[in-house]
C-alpha cells in the first residue's frame, strides 16, 4: 500500500517524552501536565470507540467468512466412498475478499480476521504479502515459518524437537509441510483429554490451514500459479483454504490466473462494507455526539473529509488526522484544559491560575461577550478572577447544552433534507453538519430551496419524517425538547384527524376531472387556465395549512438551535479551527516547498539580505538558488557553458561593478568550482540529468521546458 502517511511520529514523540515536551515550550502556569493527561484519556476513549465501530462493521463479513471456512473442509476426514465425492475433482476452497482501494485500512481488517479465525476455526493462519514473496521459494519459506511458529506459540508446552526442526531450516517443500501438519494434528488427538479440552473445543480434529494473500494485485502471476498448482496436488492431505485480499475488483483473479489454474479453485466472493459508509458511521459516532467534549471546526472537518474523498479513501487516515487535531489543540491552546467532561468543569475552572484567566479574557469570543454586557459587569469580568471563573463555568455549561441540542436538531433537519429530490443540502449528514458550522444555515439559498421542497412533501413521507423526528428528540438528553416533542406529536394527531376530510376532497376533485374529460382541446385549455386562476386564489386546504405549519416549526427549531459554533462564547476552548496547520501537516506539497526554497530563499532563511522582488537574482543568495533561477529560464536542454557564464556574471556583478573585460573572459576557478557543485546539487535533487543527445548539455526534468 502506498498511501503514504505518517502522523504517528508526532504521537510517538509525545508519548515518549510525555508531558515534558508540552511543558518545555510553555510556562508551567498553563496546566500543561493536566492538558496532556486530558488529551490522553480523551484519545483513549476515542480510540476504543473507533475500534469498536470497526469491529461492529466487520462483524457481518467475518461471520460470513467463518461460516465459509467451517463449511469448506467439513468432509476432510470422512473417507467417503460415495460416487460423487470420488469422482469430483477436489478444488481448493478460496475466498475472494474485496476490500476496496484504501489499502492502508486493510491491515486492521486482516488482523481482526486472523484473530477471529484463530479463535474460532484454526490456529494455522498465515498472512502473506507480495513484497515478501518474489519467488515461490520465498513464499514457501514464509508460509512454513509462519505456520510452524504459530504452532509453537499455541502450545508452548511442546517438547523441544519441534522448535529445533524449525530452527534447523528444514526443506521448504509441500511434503515437509504435510508431515508437519500430520504430526501436529496427531499430537492434539493423542494428547490427554484434560489438555485436549481447551484446544479441541475451539478447533476440530483437522483444522484447515488458512493462507491469506494480503495484496493479490501485487503478487506475480507465476508465484501464484505455482503455489496453487502445488497445493492442489496435496489438497487431500492438507486441508488448505486460500483467502485473496483484493483491492480493485474480482476480475483480477481471471487476469492473473489462466483458466487451467483458476479451475483448481472454488472461489466465493465476499465484499466488505464500502469505506464511505464506514466514514459516515465514524463521523456519526465520533463527531455528531455530545459524548466527547472536543469538537472540530468547519474548515478542519472539511480538510479531513476532502483528504478522504479526494485522495485516499482511508478511514484509518481520517482517524489519524482526527488524532492530530486533538494533539494540536491540546498542545497549542492553553485553555484546552477546560475541554473536558461536564462533571470536571467546575473543579478545573476554579483551579485556574491568573495567567489562564488572562488567557480567557484574551479570547475574541469572550471579548465580544464582554462588550455586550453592561459596564458594571464588564469591569467585574475584566478585573475579578473569581467572578470570571463563575461566569466561565456558566458559559461552558451553556456550550454543552448547546451541543446536545445541536446534534438532535441537526439529525431532525437531516431527516427532512435527506429525502428531498436533488438533495439541496447534501445527502449525507456530514455535509449538513459542515453547512451548519460554516454560517447561519437559514441564510443560505440551499436552505431556502429545501424548505420550498419540504412544503411540497406528500403526506405519508411527512408522517414518517415527523415520527422519526419525535424519536430522535425523545432519545436526546437535552431537557428543552419536551415542548418540541409535544408539538410534533400534536401535528401527528392533527394529520390523522385530517384523514376523513381529505377523503371528501378527493371525491370533489375527481368529479371535477370527470367534467373536463369530454371537452375539446380549446375548451380544455380554457378550463385549465381557469382552474389555475382559481387555485391561486383558492384557500389552502387543511392539509396544506398544516404542512406549512410543520415546516415553519422545523424552521424555527433550526433558527434556534443550529447557530454556528463561531457565534458561541468560549467556543475556542472546545473547537479546533487551525485548518492551515492541519493542511500543512497532512497534505504536504514537496514540489512547492522545494520551489519556494530555491526561488525565494528568504522564505526559509529569513535573512534580510536575501529579500528581493520578483524577477532579479541577488548574488548573495546561495549558489544553488542562483543556478536554479538561471535554469528556469532555459528550455529542455541547457548548455553548460552558457549557464556557467550567466552564473559568473550574476556572482561577480555586485563585487566589482567596473570589472575589466579581460577578467570576465576567464572564469575564476573558484566560481567554476562553485558552479559545478551547485549543478551537481541540482542533479541530486532531480531537476536535471546528463543528456546523451548533446555532450555539453544537461536535460531538465521538471516542468519540461515550459
Amino acid at each position, binding site marked *: 500500500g502506498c*498511501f503514504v502517511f505518517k502522523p504517528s511520529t508526532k504521537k510517538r514523540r509525545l508519548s515518549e517524552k510525555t508531558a515534558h515536551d508540552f511543558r518545555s515550550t510553555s510556562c508551567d502556569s498553563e496546566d500543561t501536565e493536566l492538558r496532556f493527561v486530558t488529551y490522553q484519556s480523551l484519545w483513549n476513549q476515542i480510540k476504543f470507540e473507533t475500534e469498536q465501530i470497526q469491529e461492529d462493521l466487520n462483524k457481518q463479513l467475518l461471520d460470513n467468512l467463518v461460516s465459509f471456512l467451517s463449511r469448506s473442509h467439513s468432509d476432510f476426514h470422512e473417507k467417503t466412498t460415495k460416487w460423487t465425492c470420488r469422482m469430483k475433482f477436489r478444488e481448493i476452497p478460496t475466498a475472494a475478499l474485496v476490500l476496496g*482501494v484504501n489499502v492502508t485500512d486493510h491491515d486492521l481488517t486482516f488482523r481482526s480476521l486472523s484473530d477471529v479465525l484463530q479463535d474460532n476455526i484454526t490456529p494455522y493462519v498465515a498472512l502473506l504479502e507480495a513484497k515478501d514473496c518474489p519467488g515461490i521459494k520465498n513464499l514457501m519459506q514464509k508460509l512454513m515459518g509462519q505456520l510452524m511458529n504459530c504452532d509453537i506459540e499455541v502450545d508452548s508446552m511442546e517438547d523441544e524437537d519441534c522448535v529445533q526442526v524449525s530452527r534447523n531450516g528444514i526443506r521448504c517443500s509441500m511434503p515437509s509441510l504435510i508431515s508437519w501438519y500430520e504430526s501436529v494434528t496427531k499430537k492434539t488427538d493423542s494428547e490427554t483429554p484434560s489438555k485436549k479440552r481447551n484446544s479441541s473445543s475451539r478447533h476440530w480434529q483437522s483444522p484447515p490451514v488458512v493462507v491469506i494473500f494480503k495484496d493479490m494485485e501485487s503478487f506475480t502471476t507465476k508465484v501464484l500459479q*505455482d503455489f496453487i498448482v502445488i497445493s492442489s496436488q496435496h489438497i487431500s492431505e492438507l486441508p488448505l483454504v486460500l483467502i485473496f485480499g483484493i483491492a480493485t475488483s474480482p476480475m483480477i483473479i481471471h487476469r492473473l490466473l489462466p483458466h487451467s489454474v483458476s479451475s483448481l479453485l472454488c472461489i*466465493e466472493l465476499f465484499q466488505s462494507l464500502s469505506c464511505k459508509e464506514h466514514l459516515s458511521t465514524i463521523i456519526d459516532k465520533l463527531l455528531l455526539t455530545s459524548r466527547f467534549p472536543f469538537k472540530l471546526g468547519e474548515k478542519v472537518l472539511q480538510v479531513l473529509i476532502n483528504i478522504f474523498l479526494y485522495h485516499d479513501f482511508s478511514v484509518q487516515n481520517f482517524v489519524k488526522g482526527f488524532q492530530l487535531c486533538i494533539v494540536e489543540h491540546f498542545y497549542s491552546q492553553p485553555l484546552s484544559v477546560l475541554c473536558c467532561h461536564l462533571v470536571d468543569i467546575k473543579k478545573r475552572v476554579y483551579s485556574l491560575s491568573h495567567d489562564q484567566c488572562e488567557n480567557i479574557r484574551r479570547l475574541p469570543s469572550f471579548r465580544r461577550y464582554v462588550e455586550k454586557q453592561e459596564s458594571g459587569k464588564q469591569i467585574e469580568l475584566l478585573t475579578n478572577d473569581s467572578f470570571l471563573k463563575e461566569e466561565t463555568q456558566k458559559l461552558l455549561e451553556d456550550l454543552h447544552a448547546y451541543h446536545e441540542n445541536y446534534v438532535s436538531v441537526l439529525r431532525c433537519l437531516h431527516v427532512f433534507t435527506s429525502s428531498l429530490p436533488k438533495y439541496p443540502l447534501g445527502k449525507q449528514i456530514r455535509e449538513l453538519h459542515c453547512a451548519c458550522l460554516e454560517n447561519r444555515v437559514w441564510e443560505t439559498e440551499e436552505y431556502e430551496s429545501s424548505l420550498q421542497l419540504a412544503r411540497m412533501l406528500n403526506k405519508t413521507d411527512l408522517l414518517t419524517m415527523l415520527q422519526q423526528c419525535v424519536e430522535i428528540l425523545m432519545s436526546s438528553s437535552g431537557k428543552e425538547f419536551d415542548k418540541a416533542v409535544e408539538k410534533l406529536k400534536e401535528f401527528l394527531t392533527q394529520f390523522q384527524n385530517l384523514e376523513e376530510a381529505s377523503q371528501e376532497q378527493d371525491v370533489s376533485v375527481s368529479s371535477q376531472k370527470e367534467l373536463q374529460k369530454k371537452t375539446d382541446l380549446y375548451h380544455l385549455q380554457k378550463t385549465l387556465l381557469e382552474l389555475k386562476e382559481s387555485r391561486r386564489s383558492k384557500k389552502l386546504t387543511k392539509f396544506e395549512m398544516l404542512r406549512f405549519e410543520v415546516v415553519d416549526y422545523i424552521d424555527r427549531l433550526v433558527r434556534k438551535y443550529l447557530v454556528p459554533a463561531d457565534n458561541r462564547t468560549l467556543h475556542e476552548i472546545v473547537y479546533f479551527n487551525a485548518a492551515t496547520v492541519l493542511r500543512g501537516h497532512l497534505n504536504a506539497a514537496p514540489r512547492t516547498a522545494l520551489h519556494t526554497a530555491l526561488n525565494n530563499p528568504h522564505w526559509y532563511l529569513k535573512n534580510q539580505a536575501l529579500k528581493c522582488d520578483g524577477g532579479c537574482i541577488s548574488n548573495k543568495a546561495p549558489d544553488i538558488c542562483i543556478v536554479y533561477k538561471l535554469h528556469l529560464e532555459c528550455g529542455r536542454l541547457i548548455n553548460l557553458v552558457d549557464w556557467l557564464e550567466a552564473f559568473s556574471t550574476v556572482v561577480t556583478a555586485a563585487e566589482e561593478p567596473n570589472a575589466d573585460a579581460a577578467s570576465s573572459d576567464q572564469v575564476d576557478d573558484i566560481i567554476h568550482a562553485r558552479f559545478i557543485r551547485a549543478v551537481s546539487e541540482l542533479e541530486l535533487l532531480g531537476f536535471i540529468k546528463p543528456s546523451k543527445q548533446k555532450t555539453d548539455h544537461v536535460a531538465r526534468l521538471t516542468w519540461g521546458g515550459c
Partner: protein
Amino acid sequence: MPNLEHPAYPAADLLQLESLVPCRESQVSMLLSIFGERQQFSFPSIFIYGHTSSGKTYVMQTLLTTLQLPHVFVNCVEYFTSRLLLEEILTQLQSCSPGTEQTSPVHCDTLNDFVRLFKQALASQELQDQTLYIVLDRAEQLREMEANILPAFLRLQELTDRNVTVVLLSEIVWELFRPNTGCFEPFTMYFPDYSIGHLQKILSQNHPPEYSADFYAAYINILLGVFYMVCRDLKELRHLAVLNFAKYCEPVVRGEANERDTRKLWKNIEPHLKKAMQTVYLREISSSQWERLQHDGGEPGQLKGLSAHTHVELPYYSKFLLIAAYLASYNPVRTDKRFFLKHHGKIRKTNFMKKHEKTSNHLLGPKPFPLDRLLAILYSIVDNRVAPTANIFSQITSLVTLQLLSMVGQSDQLDGPRYKCTVSLDFIRAIAR
C-alpha cells in the same frame, strides 16, 4: 485394438493394465517394448509430450505401479529448486527399497553429489538387476534450473553406470527443450488428444452404482454435445459431469420420466448445462455455490458472478489521474496541444491524419508516457486548481500497486519515471461517469 502382450510380464497384470488405461493401448505397448524385460537396459531417456490431460502422468503411473517396476515419480513444479528435486529423488529411492531402515534426511547440493549418492543408494539395494525408472513430470520446469540439470538427467544411465531410465513428461515439444550446447537426444513419444469417442468411452466407464451404464452413457453424450466445443480437458469434463448429474436424474427421481426417456431428459438438462458453461466452467461462480443453487432449486441469475463486480470505487483525484493516464497512453503527444489548450490555433485539415494513424490506437495498445505529461493533462482536465501535493504523487504509486497503471523501465524516481495505463476503455468509461 491390439491386446497388450509381452513375454516378460504375467498376462493377468497386462489385462488389468489394459482395463485401467482405455484408449491408450498403443502407447502402452510401445512403452512396454521400449522398456523390455526387467533386467534389460532400456533407452537412457524417454521424452513424452502431449496436450493437457492426454493421460501422460496417469498412464505412466498406472503402468509402473501395476507392473510393479521400481520407480521414482517427481513433479518438477513442486520441487522448484534443483536441490529439492535431487533430494526428493534420493528420498523416494530410499523408501522404495524393500528392507527400509529409518530414512535419514539426505543432503545433496549438486549433481556430482547426486550421482555419488545415487550409486550408493542403488548399491545398497537389490535393485541392480532391474531397470529403475525416474519420471519427471512437468519437465519444462527443468529448463529454469541450473544449465547442467537437464543434460545430466538425459544421460544419467551413462553418468551413473547403472540400469536407470529417465522419463520426462511435458506439455511442450522437445524442440523447445534442446539446450544450445547440445545434449543427448531422448526418445520422443507423442500422446495425441483424446477424440470425442475416447472421451465418451472414458467418462462413461465410471458410472454411479445406482444407475445403469447406458443411462449414464446417454448423459455423457449430452454433456459432451454441449461442452466438447469449449473444453476437452478430461478432468474438467468429469468434474462438470458430476456437478450436473443430480439435475439430470431429477425427472427420473420424481417419476416423471423413466431412464429410457432420453428426449425428455435432454430437454430438462440442456438449458441447465448451457448455463453451467457460462458460469461454473468459467469459474464465475464456484462449484459449491452451483451445487447449493441446484439443491435449493434457485435460479442461477440470483448469484452474481465474479465479473459482475467490475466497478471499482476510487478517490476523486485517483479517478482523474487514471483518466489522464489513459488519455496520455492512447493519444499521441502532438494532439495534446490541440485537446488540452484553450488557444491551440488553427487545425490543419489536410494531411492531419497520416496513413498509419488510421489504425486505431486501441489496437496498438497503451504507450508509455512521462510523469510530467500525466500531471499536465491532469491539471487541464480537473476544473479547479490542483496543488501538486504528496498525496497526489502517492496516489500514482498506489495506482501502480493496484495494477491500474504500470511503471515502464527502471524504477529510478530521479530519472523521470514513465508509466503505462493498463485499464480498458470500458473501465475508464465507468469511472468517468
